[in-house]
């Protein structure tokens, strides 16, 4: 069936066609720029540069055009387009149109491309002599990104994925009957509105986080392109001066983007923290680490001629890691390991070729002579052919990567070495070491995030590994042979094991390296200058250890605490000691203080986070499994006031506002309990009565001899109803938090946290479970029906019921009031607290029948057990009397609450890191332009 012959009604096909044409133009422009800039680089010919600029402009206009067309489609709600239908809807406020623009795979590629276009045009304007080689690299990247948006087929292989496909053109829909309906847009109700944006993403973070992060990714391309240009031109050191401001611009923007992601998770998502070592988070952190290292190595090489090879290495690897992280998060290889990666959708081969091409480019550029370059290129092409033709993909990639590493090590010879070794106590040496530690840190995170990739790489080696495992008897090698590795079960412990020591070293280096001098240092002067900071840091550490209660077993944390405090203090002092208060040059010191505070805040808030929402009711989970932590969730019955951490909490009521269902939770002060003479309390199975008015001590045993007398004779009922002794009681109300649930039938409900901020700590709460029926204001949860025979025992989640007898109420008053056509049944039950075999109550629910049908009932509430019993039905059957009983629990919610101490240190650190880097970039630009 040829659908092209059908005249479809109501489609705006021109937009998609224009989009496709623009996508092709953007590729053509990028390719033209690539060839022309490449030629210009080789020949140094200005006329080629002019042609190349034309090409890049064409590319730029085409990219802006694609963006404009996509926006027009989104703003006009043309739901015949798959991207529009999947990511937007009619009720969406305008500001979310941006969010849904880059929510999808194609849109986020477009965002990335857009930033490259912006940066590329700035470079055309500013880069002067470096323009041709730098822009050659840019054009190559843009050509790859442009193909990612093509969505055309070469044979069976789809190249890229286009945002301009109509839904009826989607591969999964082609050939379906409805695609032959000319008026399908009117006939099929689903086309009336799009799916809209996931409620998780409907907040301002989604508007600002992705553009920032992608600008950060894009910024890493600039130093990469300069490094490649430097290699091509043989100007091994000159490229760093123009690349440096860009590098720290990248550090600033990418760092901000990453921290925004953390802030988003913390403020608006119920992940329970700001960093979870999720693969997608890791993938953005890793390039930042190496970019910071690269920037510092460039600084070293500018002053002293050392660290040249490592400066190249880290600069090149940063962009390669950006590509790798794109590959990880978009190709689908992460699969089940991440909650927020994209699914593959056939992007894997394209992304792989993209990434490996730049590995090849990096290695080839590092190689010293033309012969080696040609040889390596030839080998790479041969491996590509072998890989594709013999379907030995993994083997070909592994051989290629091994050769790439081998050749890179070989290329090391090309780089000039300083004649004598640098001194041990010099700034350049320790900056070099620090950068290498950052590289190691990045490598560790990369390895652990790459576990799913290792499975792919291990697969061809199953046979030899199995053999090796059998001969050595190693379970571990056998598990490798299975190629079914999963991420570490306790990811946080795994990462901390490595990253805490790395962070310790880096923080220590950040602390003292500024105090060292280039070339050689007078060590006496060094210690004199540093002594005060060291002393202050020791004092802060001692105070911190005491206040936060760090134990000796947590020596690694204490060490990190000290190192970060030292780094913050030493860098703050440096502004006066080293720079004599010159604020212009203080950028790096401010940034270092910020970095140290980010680490310190993260250390304190995560190592001392306290899940205060412990549950004291019901069953202990550790009976089930020792590995289970007992209850991180607190159960709050409406109306009850219970102790939680440093407060009493009280779930007042729920309130619907638009699509949000708010749960009002009051927080009260904790104050010592006042007892009056004659008050009765229960301690274990004994009742005590108060001798006098008194204020409770922390322990009952302290009070008992003077204030309490055990009762000897009392009815058992008194024991069941008596309250336990407690040293505290709720004081005045301090504040209210309103965690809420966003109700969304299409995407599922989303719980959003509510956080109380203090200077020294935060209390973060969110709903885990609640009755989401907005119409139900009865104060009870939905009932549960039990159907049993009279005389049976029912076990509910909180109580044990013994249905003793059923009485038909026939007294004259009832008969007179209702008339003879009604029958009234009353069930007599004994009710026991499920968790206290001594607490017995009685319940007598009533049901009224007329003509064999229940018409009314009167429930019976047992407030001590927070339940109400409703008699639903009474049926005489052969085997006995069948009773239907509805059990209502009082309305409750389940909440998680975590106290994060010192989290403000982290946020202050973020701001300082941002400002400091900004100051440093400005200073560097000023110096270059002066």
């Amino acid at each position, binding site marked *: 069936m040829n659908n092209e012959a059908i005249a479809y009604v109501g489609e705006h096909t021109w937009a998609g066609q224009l989009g496709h044409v623009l996508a092709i133009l953007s590729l053509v422009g990028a390719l033209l720029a690539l060839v022309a800039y490449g030629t210009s680089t080789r020949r140094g010919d200005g006329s080629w540069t002019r042609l190349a600029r034309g090409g890049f402009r064409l590319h730029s206009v085409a990219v802006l055009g694609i963006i404009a067309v996509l926006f027009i489609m989104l703003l006009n709600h043309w739901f015949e387009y*798959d991207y529009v239908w*999947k990511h937007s809807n009619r009720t969406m406020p305008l500001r979310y149109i941006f969010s849904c623009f880059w929510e999808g795979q194609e849109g986020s590629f477009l965002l990335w491309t857009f930033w490259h276009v912006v940066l590329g045009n700035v470079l055309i304007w500013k880069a002067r002599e470096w323009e041709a080689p730098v822009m050659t690299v840019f054009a190559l990247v843009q050509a790859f990104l442009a193909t990612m948006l093509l969505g055309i087929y070469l044979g069976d292989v789809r190249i890229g994925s286009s945002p301009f496909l109509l839904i009826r053109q989607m591969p*999964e*829909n082609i050939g*379906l009957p*409805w695609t032959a309906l000319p008026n399908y847009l009117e006939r*099929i109700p*689903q086309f009336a509105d799009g*799916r809209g944006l*996931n409620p*998780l993403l409907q907040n301002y973070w989604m508007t600002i986080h992705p553009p920032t992060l992608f600008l950060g990714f894009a910024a890493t391309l600039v130093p990469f392109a300069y490094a490649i240009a430097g290699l091509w031109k043989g100007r091994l050191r000159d490229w760093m001066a123009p690349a440096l401001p860009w590098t720290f611009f990248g550090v600033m923007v990418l760092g901000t983007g990453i921290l925004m992601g953390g802030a988003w998770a913390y403020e608006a998502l119920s992940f329970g923290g700001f960093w979870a070592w999720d693969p997608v988070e890791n993938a953005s952190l890793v390039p930042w680490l190496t970019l910071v290292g690269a920037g510092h190595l460039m600084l070293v090489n500018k002053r002293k001629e050392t660290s040249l090879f490592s400066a190249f290495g880290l600069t090149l690897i940063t962009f390669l890691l950006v590509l790798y992280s794109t590959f990880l998060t978009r190709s689908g290889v992460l699969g*089940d390991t991440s*909650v*927020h990666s994209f*699914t593959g*959708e056939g992007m894997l081969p394209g992304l792989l070729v993209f990434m490996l091409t730049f590995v090849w480019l990096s290695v080839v550029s590092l190689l010293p002579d033309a012969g080696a370059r040609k040889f390596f290129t030839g080998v790479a092409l041969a491996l590509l052919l072998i890989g594709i033709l013999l379907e030995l993909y993994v083997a070909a990639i592994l051989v290629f990567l091994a050769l790439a590493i081998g050749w890179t090590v070989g290329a090391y010879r090309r780089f000039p070495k300083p004649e004598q070794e640098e001194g041990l106590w010099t700034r350049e040496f320790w900056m070099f*070491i620090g950068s*290498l530690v950052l590289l*190691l840190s990045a*490598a*560790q995170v990369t390895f*652990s995030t*790459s*576990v799913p990739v290792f499975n792919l790489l291990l697969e061809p080696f199953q046979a030899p590994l199995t053999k090796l495992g059998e001969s050595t008897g190693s379970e*571990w090698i056998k598990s490798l042979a*299975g190629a*079914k*590795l*999963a*991420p*570490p*079960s306790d990811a946080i412990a*795994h990462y901390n*094991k*490595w990253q805490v020591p790395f962070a310790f070293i880096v923080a220590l280096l950040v602390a003292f390296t500024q105090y060292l001098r280039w070339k050689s240092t007078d060590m006496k002067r060094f210690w004199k200058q540093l002594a005060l900071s060291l002393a202050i840091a020791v004092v802060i550490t001692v105070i911190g250890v005491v206040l936060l209660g760090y134990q000796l077993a947590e020596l690694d944390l204490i060490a990190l605490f000290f190192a970060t405090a030292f780094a913050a203090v030493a860098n703050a002092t440096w502004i006066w000691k080293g720079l004599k208060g010159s604020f212009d040059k203080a950028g790096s010191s401010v940034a270092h203080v910020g970095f140290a505070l980010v680490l310190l805040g993260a250390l304190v808030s995560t190592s001392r986070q306290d899940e205060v929402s412990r*549950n004291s*009711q*019901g*069953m202990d*989970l550790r009976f*089930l*499994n020792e*590995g*289970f932590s007992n*209850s991180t*969730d607190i*159960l709050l019955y409406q109306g009850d006031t219970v102790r939680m951490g440093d407060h009493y909490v009280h779930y007042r009521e729920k309130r619907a506002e638009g699509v949000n269902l708010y749960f009002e939770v009051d927080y009260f002060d904790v104050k010592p309990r006042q007892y009056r003479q004659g008050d009765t309390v229960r301690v274990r199975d004994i009742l005590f009565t108060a001798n006098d008015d008194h204020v409770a001590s922390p322990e009952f045993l302290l009070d008992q001899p003077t204030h309490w007398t055990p009762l000897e004779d009392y009815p058992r009922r008194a024991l069941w109803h008596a309250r336990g002794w407690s040293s505290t009681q709720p004081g005045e109300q301090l504040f209210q938090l309103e965690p809420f649930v966003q109700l969304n039938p*299409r995407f*599922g*409900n*989303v719980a959003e946290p509510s956080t109380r901020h203090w200077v020294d700590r935060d209390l973060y709460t969110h709903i*885990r*479970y609640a009755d989401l029926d907005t119409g139900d204001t009865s104060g009870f949860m939905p009932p549960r029906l039990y159907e049993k025979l009279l005389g049976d025992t029912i076990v509910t*989640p*909180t109580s044990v019921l013994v249905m003793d007898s059923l009485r038909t109420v026939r007294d004259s008053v009832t008969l007179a009031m209702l008339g003879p056509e009604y029958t009234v049944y009353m069930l007599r039950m004994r009710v026991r607290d*499920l968790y206290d075999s001594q607490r017995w109550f009685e319940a007598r629910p009533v049901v009224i029948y007329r003509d064999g049908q229940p018409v009314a009932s009167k429930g019976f509430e047992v407030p001590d057990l*927070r339940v109400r019993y409703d008699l639903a039905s009474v049926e005489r059957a052969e085997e006995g009397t069948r009773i239907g009983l509805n059990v209502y*629990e009082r309305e409750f919610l*389940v909440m*998680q609450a975590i106290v994060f101490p010192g989290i403000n240190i982290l946020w202050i650190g973020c701001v300082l890191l941002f400002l400091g880097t900004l100051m440093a970039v400005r200073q560097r630009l000023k110096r270059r332009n002066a």
Partner: protein
Amino acid sequence: MKRSHIIAIALIAVAIAALVSSLYDSSTYADLEEALANPGTEYHVVGTLDRSAEIVYEPSRNASLTEFTMVDLEGNTCRVKLAKAKPTDFERSERLVLIGEATSDGEFHARDMLMKCPSKYNEENRMVGA
């Protein structure tokens, strides 16, 4: 030996240690059959929620315990005790990854669970029947 050589060797040593550690600390994906055959060993098990079986979540008994039945990719089923509150929209989940161990009496005790909802990133186009 020059200092740069020492640094290079230390660098490579730490990098290799980190690589081995990431492999060593990693858990293993398994199906239920394998997990049940090795009680007490921690696994990641991928599968789906058995919607025909009862999901039990009794907050008043324990707010952090959810019981349900899982079907793994091979079609094996097993009763699961998960030490977490029942996630919102659990019934709509498309894919589950349980992290935990089997017990000797044939249950699976999950410490943690990753859940993917169809809606999150790639809901199927529900127009097939239209």
